[in-house]
């Protein structure tokens, strides 16, 4: 059954491999995926270690509902101490790897030590083998997978791999699977690279028994309809996630020229409908009927004829908005390159845009760029910088270190221009007019990121009764709620609620697009309770699932605090408070965040969590969640 998948401890230094069952009591506490990874991370990683040294631990897992009849139950989670931030490293990606790992018998891998030479893991029906990786070292993400399939003689093998960026320890390198499923943010690719672990190949044919098969079938049929009938899913199935960039740019909620404008005006050439002209069809992840991923062939230039998938909305931000470019080809090529190198598109785009502003300000000169004209709007320079970062050449070597280390090397107050939190660059969005979204990126456990807690439906101006319905379950809430995204009131609760929503869904291994992320009518705790029961037999109420999420999020907080995080780290760049927005719809012009109000929001957010004014979980909170004795080393 879905609960009998094992955990494997793999020591790359010694070659030892040990497998164990995962006790039911631990499942009930942490479910699986990100939640259990966070528990393992807190228990297996010693405080203060070098994230790129052999003491760091790479955790690879599948969510508890992966491979079952829970729509889009496809997600792989990878965790460890982040080489980028030094705090929680955590990434989640779709595709087909996680289901395959489960069919091969495993839910969690705990990878320790460092291999002497490049290796890859081969997981096959309950067995794990460490294999020589010399034939794949130095290869792109796509080449690596083709070579491994050839070597293992099975075209159905699914592979999680790093690219050249991961090998070169770019601190925001991705783990990847298939053509473009990207485990981005927080540099888990560099973590694997530091262990000389190029890839993990999985293939399995072991049954995952469904607890109540006919009910699971009927319920899944119903829930797919619930998902695909949502307008947001239909738009996404047609235009991909690009529509998100279109909608936010229309309002003026995106970063342009690093952080100088909040809208890319005259952007007709790169808006979703225009990019759709390059689309040759849609594809998607395991078990998903939304199919939000576009397929395209690069139409011209040095990469003409290359088949690629995407781009996603973050790529429009990275290759158009942030560097101030308006060429669709730059987006198509940039997207292809980061997916081949295994680079985080968000971080790469942000780092380049930051360097462009430094160049404009004279902090970086053409001497630093080896003659490259790094001005805003220079498409060729943007693409060239991707190559330099992945291969750590010239300025690329400095930018590969992430914002904090790079700013230290560059000096001259360059940090002032960086839009980052906890050492992770923000995605392409501009949160000055949206306090709720700003609070989300300021407090996110892995840094400046939207997938920890972004209440994106806050942008929809939903009527208060609808908000009330959503946000007062599964735990009651009778505080303020506001339909206006420019307000500060009630937003901390929304951020807290979405934090729990995304943590829970990451434990289950379902895609966030199938939750109350972009659509108010999409599933959350109540639906997951049923999915858990029909598929695994586990009886957990919506509130039980919420409590698991709270437990896991508190462990993330404990990990960060152990690594030195303080309240000061839950804060944004001064530019959010000092430089007003200039463009966009009238309602978002001339906006800054208010420091005092923002501080109060953080207080309130801590209070919802049961944390003290310094953001430290109170002893009674930890007791209530049963994690006051961590690390407990149950696994």
């Amino acid at each position, binding site marked *: 059954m879905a609960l009998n998948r094992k955990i494997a401890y793999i020591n790359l230094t010694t070659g030892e491999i040990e497998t164990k069952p995962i006790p039911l009591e631990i499942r009930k506490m942490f479910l699986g995926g990100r939640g259990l990874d966070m528990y393992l991370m807190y228990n297996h990683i010693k405080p203060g270690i070098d994230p790129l040294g052999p003491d760091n631990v790479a955790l690879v897992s599948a969510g508890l509902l992966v491979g079952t009849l829970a729509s889009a139950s496809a997600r792989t989670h990878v965790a460890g101490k982040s080489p980028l931030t030094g705090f929680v490293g955590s990434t989640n990606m779709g595709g087909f790897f996680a289901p395959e790992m489960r069919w091969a018998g495993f839910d969690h891998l705990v990878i320790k030590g460092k291999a002497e030479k490049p290796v890859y893991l081969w997981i096959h029906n309950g067995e794990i083998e460490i294999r020589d990786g010399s034939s794949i070292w130095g290869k792109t993400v796509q080449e690596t997978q083709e070579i491994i399939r050839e070597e293992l003689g099975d075209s159905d093998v699914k592979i999680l791999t790093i690219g050249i960026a991961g090998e070169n320890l770019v601190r925001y390198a991705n783990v990847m699977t298939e053509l473009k499923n990207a485990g981005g943010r927080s540099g888990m690719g560099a973590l694997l690279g530091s262990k000389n672990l190029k890839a993990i190949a999985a293939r399995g044919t072991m049954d995952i028994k469904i607890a109540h098969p006919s*009910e699971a079938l*009927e*319920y899944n049929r*119903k829930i797919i309809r*619930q998902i695909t*009938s*949502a*307008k947001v899913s*239909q*738009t996404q199935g*047609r*235009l991909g996630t690009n*529509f998100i960039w*279109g*909608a936010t*740019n*229309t*309002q*003026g909620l995106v970063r342009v020229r690093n952080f*100088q*404008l909040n*809208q890319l*005006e*005259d*952007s*007709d050439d790169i*808006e979703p*409908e225009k990019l759709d002209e390059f689309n040759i069809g849609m594809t998607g992840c395991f078990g998903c009927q939304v199919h939000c991923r576009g397929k395209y062939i690069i139409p011209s230039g040095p990469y003409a004829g290359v088949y690629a998938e995407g781009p996603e909305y973050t790529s429009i931000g990275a290759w158009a908005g942030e560097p101030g470019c308006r060429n669709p080809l730059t987006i198509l090529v940039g997207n292809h390159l980061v997916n081949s190198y295994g680079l985080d598109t968000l971080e790469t785009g942000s780092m380049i845009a930051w360097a462009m502003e430094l160049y404009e300000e004279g902090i970086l000169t053409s001497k630093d760029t080896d003659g490259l004209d790094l001005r805003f709007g220079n498409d060729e320079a943007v693409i060239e910088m991707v190559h330099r970062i992945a291969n750590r050449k010239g300025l690329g070597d400095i930018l590969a270190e992430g914002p904090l280390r790079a700013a230290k090397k560059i000096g001259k107050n360059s940090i002032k221009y960086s839009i980052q939190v906890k050492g992770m660059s923000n995605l392409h969005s501009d949160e000055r007019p949206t306090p709720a979204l700003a609070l989300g990126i300021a407090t996110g456990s892995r840094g400046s990121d939207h997938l920890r807690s972004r209440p994106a439906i806050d942008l*929809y*101006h939903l009527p208060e009764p*609808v908000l009330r*319905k*959503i946000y007062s*379950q599964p735990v009651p809430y009778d505080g303020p709620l506001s*339909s206006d995204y420019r307000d500060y009131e009630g937003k901390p609760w929304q951020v807290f609620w979405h934090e729990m929503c995304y943590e829970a869904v990451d434990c289950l291994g379902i895609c966030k697009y199938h939750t*109350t992320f972009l659509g*108010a*009518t*999409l*599933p*959350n705790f*109540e*639906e997951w309770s*049923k999915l858990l029961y029909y598929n695994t037999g586990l009886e957990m109420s919506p509130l039980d699932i919420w409590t698991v999420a709270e437990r896991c999020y508190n462990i993330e907080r404990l990990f960060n605090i152990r690594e030195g995080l303080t309240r000061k780290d839950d804060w944004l760049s001064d530019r959010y408070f000092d430089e007003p927005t*200039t*463009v*966009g*719809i*009238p*309602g978002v*012009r001339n906006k800054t965040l208010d420091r005092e109000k923002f501080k109060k929001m953080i207080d309130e957010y801590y209070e919802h969590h049961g944390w003290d004014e310094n953001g430290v979980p109170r002893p009674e909170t930890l007791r209530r969640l049963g994690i006051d004795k961590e690390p407990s080393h149950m696994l």
Partner: protein
Amino acid sequence: MNQETTSESIAKGRTLGAFRCLNCFVRISPPKGATTYKCPHCGFEWRVSWPLPDLPRIRGPVWEVNRRLAEEAIAKKKKGKK
């Protein structure tokens, strides 16, 4: 299985063929197939696209106003430096 969840109950209030004006947030229904539409409430003009025949989407604003503002902002910044 049959008990209605919160999300399902919210789905009952779904409106087809409409979107919220991104300026005044009133729900408006452009005529089918329209490529531009002026919000009848606030007068803001939008470019409209139709991902599906009965699913309209705001494609973007009509740019002139925004372009002027962006140019002013960049000019002001450059002036401040000199």
